[in-house]
């Protein structure tokens, strides 16, 4: 059991590091991004990475209360991506 827990701790550290690096790299793309589509895509990726960070924090602490947080982040991320894309496409969100 101790070796399994050690492997789980190492995997948790690797997941935290890769998700945080993903946030940083997609923020670089958000600042560079030559077109509007790249910026929307980078924001969508950052929302999804934040969702992954919340899920991994939930595994690390061993509690279930982060489920509602991640569900809300997923819904808000989808709605904000569609709203941004629609604003650039049509100049208005709800016509």
């Amino acid at each position: 059991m101790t070796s399994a827990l050690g492997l789980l701790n190492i995997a948790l550290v690797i997941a935290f590091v890769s998700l945080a690096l993903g946030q940083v790299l997609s923020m670089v793309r958000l600042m560079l991004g030559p077109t509007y589509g790249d910026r929307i895509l980078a924001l969508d990726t950052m929302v999804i990475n934040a969702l992954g960070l919340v899920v991994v924090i939930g595994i690390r602490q061993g509690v279930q209360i982060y489920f509602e947080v991640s569900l809300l982040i997923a819904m808000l991320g989808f709605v904000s991506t569609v709203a941004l894309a629609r604003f650039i496409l049509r100049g208005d969100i709800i016509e």
Partner: protein
Amino acid sequence: MTLDVIATYATAVFLLIGSGFVIVGVIGLLKFNDPMTRLHAPTKVGTIGIGMLLLASMTHAFASGDGSLHELLIMAFLFVTAPISANFIAKVNIHSRTCEVPPSPSRDDTWSTLKSPDLDQEIKGGVQE
């Protein structure tokens, strides 16, 4: 080797697979040099990467006693909404002419995203009068 140990190992393996997909997708977002190509990479983050992390969360909940399946709800929501947002971003790329514009359809010209059908223009003109 009891069931708890196997579930803990499975959690660790799912976490490693998920973080691998996350890092590969984000590197693709940063390194590719065409907007449509860049659109292809981070969709793997949204589906396989986060799906594996949620699977690890479920497995860990079963290993630690009180099992729960309601991470499947987030997984289903992400799998449903990922193609929709990717389609919207692709339409943004097409409309801002940052990629190669798709060819116009041969017979019917009402489906293309760049061309509005004649009926809509007639309705618009009618409203303005």
